[in-house]
């Protein structure tokens, strides 16, 4: 568990990162650095989007799978990496 904590701290420490969320396969957050309401919102919405993206990738080629999803908006960049059981979401403010 200490390793997980260390790794998450490392990500959080990178310049510009606003928050990190670890979510399980159903979209329930496990660990987060943001407040509860924001976390729940991000987890729910990004979980659905990731499922959709993954099904898109797999429909095109069933041997393929989604590894990384980056969403760039005006204000932030949201990065989602997915596994069979977990989802890791990182929100960064890329403005220098």
């Amino acid at each position: 568990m200490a390793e997980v904590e260390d790794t998450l701290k490392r990500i959080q420490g990178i310049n510009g990162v606003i928050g990190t969320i670890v979510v399980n396969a159903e979209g329930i957050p496990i660990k987060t650095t943001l407040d509860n309401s924001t976390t729940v919102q991000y987890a729910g919405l990004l979980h659905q989007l990731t499922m959709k993206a993954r099904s898109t990738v797999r429909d095109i080629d069933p041997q393929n799978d989604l590894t990384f999803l980056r969403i760039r908006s005006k204000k932030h960049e949201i990065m989602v990496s997915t596994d069979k059981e977990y989802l890791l979401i990182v929100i960064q403010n890329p403005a220098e």
Partner: protein
Amino acid sequence: MSSKRPKSKEARKSKGKDKSNETNPTPDGGALESGHPDYIFPLVLTSATQELFGCRADEDVTGENPYKLLKKEDIIKDMKTRASVSDFSPVKQLVLDYPEDELLLVFDRDFTYGQSFYLVLTVEAKENILKPSVEGDEEQMKEEEVEEEEMIIPKTPVSHPWISLGSEQEIEEESVTESRPRLRYKISPLLRHCGAPVCFSDRSALDEKEGFVECPSYQDKSFSIREMEKHTAIQASCDTKHSSTQTLWKYPKNMWTQYEPREFSPEEKEHHLRSEHLKNFITSVLIRFEISLQQNYITDVFCDDWTALCEDDGMLAGKTETQLKEYQTFMDLHFSKEKTISHVHWHPTISGVIAVAMTERLSLEERIDNSTKLLLNPSYILFWNFTDPINPQLQLECPDDVLCFQFCPSDPNIIAGGCMNGQVVLWDISAHVERLQDTRSSSKNISNKLDKNNVTPVVRYCAVSGIENGHKAPITDIQWLPETFELSKLGIPVENPSRISVQLVTCAPDCSVLFWDLRPPRVVSHSLTDVKQKSEEKPLENPHGVPNTFKHLNLTWKPFIRVSLPKIGSSGEYSPLKFSLRDNTVDSPTGDKPPQNTDREEGCGFAQLRVPSAKQQKPLENISTKLYVGTEEGELVYTDWKMEKDNDSGRLLSTKPIHRFPLHDTLVNTVSRSPFFKDIILTVGSSSFAIWKEGVTNGPILMSAFSKKMLTVGHWSLSRPAVFFIGKEDGSIEVWDLLQNTHEPSQSQNISSAGITCIRTSSISSKQHLLAVSDCLGTLHILQIPWTLRRSSNSEKQIVRKYLEKEEERLEYFEKRQIKHEKEKKEMEAEQQRKKTEPVLPLKQEEELEAEALKKYEQFLALEKDILKNMGLLNGMEDSSDM
């Protein structure tokens, strides 16, 4: 087929039977003939035959068991052996024809067939007899049954004659048959007529009455038949049914639901965090996250450099674009000779119309000398229109030279002006505003207009203030208060419900700033005398058709607030020349808010308005009551116009000014606020100008260098926050751009030969910005502002603000340094003082000084020796003593 055979056999048998009956004619035979069937052949068997075949009567065959099967071969052998004697001889042929090998012999005990034995001649009969029959013991019955059974065996249907059951009778009744032969008639004319020549002609049957005979049907009442039976045809059809249904109407109902997101309990979270799976996952994805995050940090890949670049590049411009181009010049030959333009103002709503105040170009002595002549030549305010450069559109007659005037911001038909004699003048040009608007639109009709009325209409002023209550010196600045607020008697800004500008502010070098109200003053009680006076005034008609807008003010008008400017720190007062309020109507661009003329009735609004009582008015908090005043001595005074009540005398006194900045050496001719920043003020003196920020008391943020030529007027640009125009005595205009240079103007251009008296920008049309410049000789120049000076970039305001803030910081820094310097200086002085007060030490003798020096030197030598000894460098000890 087989049935035929018994018949044939029966036929033969009957023949044979007859024969046998002939041999045995017994009455039983006769009865037997009719009784026994054809396939039974009664036999008499002798006892020898009986013994031979084993069918002895009452021994082998009995009544109970009368059947005996005989072999055909035996019978044939017997017949052969005994030929005609054999008992079987009559049936010889029959036996030979018998298909099977065994024949059935039946002991006929009762002599039913006439003999004691009978032979069954058919196979079927044999089988039938031998079969145990249930029906009856009687052989006849059995035989009959056998016969019947033979018939019932299923065969192909055989056509039988039709048996009538009565259904053909109905058809026979219906059908029509001829009951008798048909009668034939032959009709022919007499023979003699035949062959004669005939003439045929046509005749219509309808021509004559007797042309045809008809037998119409008629109802014969004597004869009626009641229909007992009727033939009708019936067709079956399905029923039609009308039915309807209605769906349930469910009315819309507001429903709500509340949900909560699923969350893990802390233990579950712990459990997940400890799982191996999660650890592996995170360590595996970490790298790609780091790469992406660093990518974003290094550079913004989505930034569009091209668009961001072009904004900053907007400043570059060609040489031809930067100059102010001359657009039009106005010079009136009749009225502008020997006159200067003192003030210029664009018409706020009608584009292309500009008003110009002409004053005499005379010094004070000359004025006094020529005072009588001046009275005969009244001065005017001229209205120029771009479409007509020769003739002014309108002339406003003034009681005296007008040094400044303003259009009312809420009603552009009202103009207020300040005169040389200290009077405030009001004009109402509502009657002539169509003329101004008409000429603007139609330039083709210029020639027509010129023919119609060569004389420009002269509008007389409709009200002047009372001389004794107004200023004692020429009014140098006049401004309207904005329509959002008005002032109460104490100078407190209160809400203005009528949304009309009703108050004016004027200043003059008689050391006062006056506030005027356009509404009639509050009358406490209507006395009879007042009513009488009003009725007397009514028949008086205004000469020259002056409108009655301000009749209530004429000659009785007086200000309601008088602000004096006592000097700070010394006696006397400041003499204001120009002033600037924070919320003013002059400096801000007014192009965006056109006054609503439809709401107000023209002309009679002001008379109906009444000054509201102090209790009804709601004070406004965010209006600043402070104003900047530029004085004759070149100072900028910051004061408050609120009056405070003096407790001793009960009078209202104005407060002392807050700040005073002596900057310019001669009179200040412009105090103007920036239209973009409410707290930035430009003041122009004769030799320099300065930019101030309200609230910064150290000094001006920016001060220009002293210029060689006198500066006469300054004006901010209305479209670019960093640009302002300075007019000079030699007729040139300097354009200062704070973003380019702060030590010199960005460009300078000579407009006319005489000194510039007023600069004003017009911002009505966005495509064309015009600069109105008036000069001493009475000419009004209209210049076009080039695109570079007109268009501001998006960030210009921010840049200028930052620059100003920096300058402010610089000032503060200087202030701090100054304080520090002073402190240091003080400390230094104190120290010097201290030194001076210390006791003076006696002069030492020279020898003593030498002795001391020598002693010190010897000490030094000893020290040197020690050190060298310690270091081990002391080689020549004897030599060192001589050094």
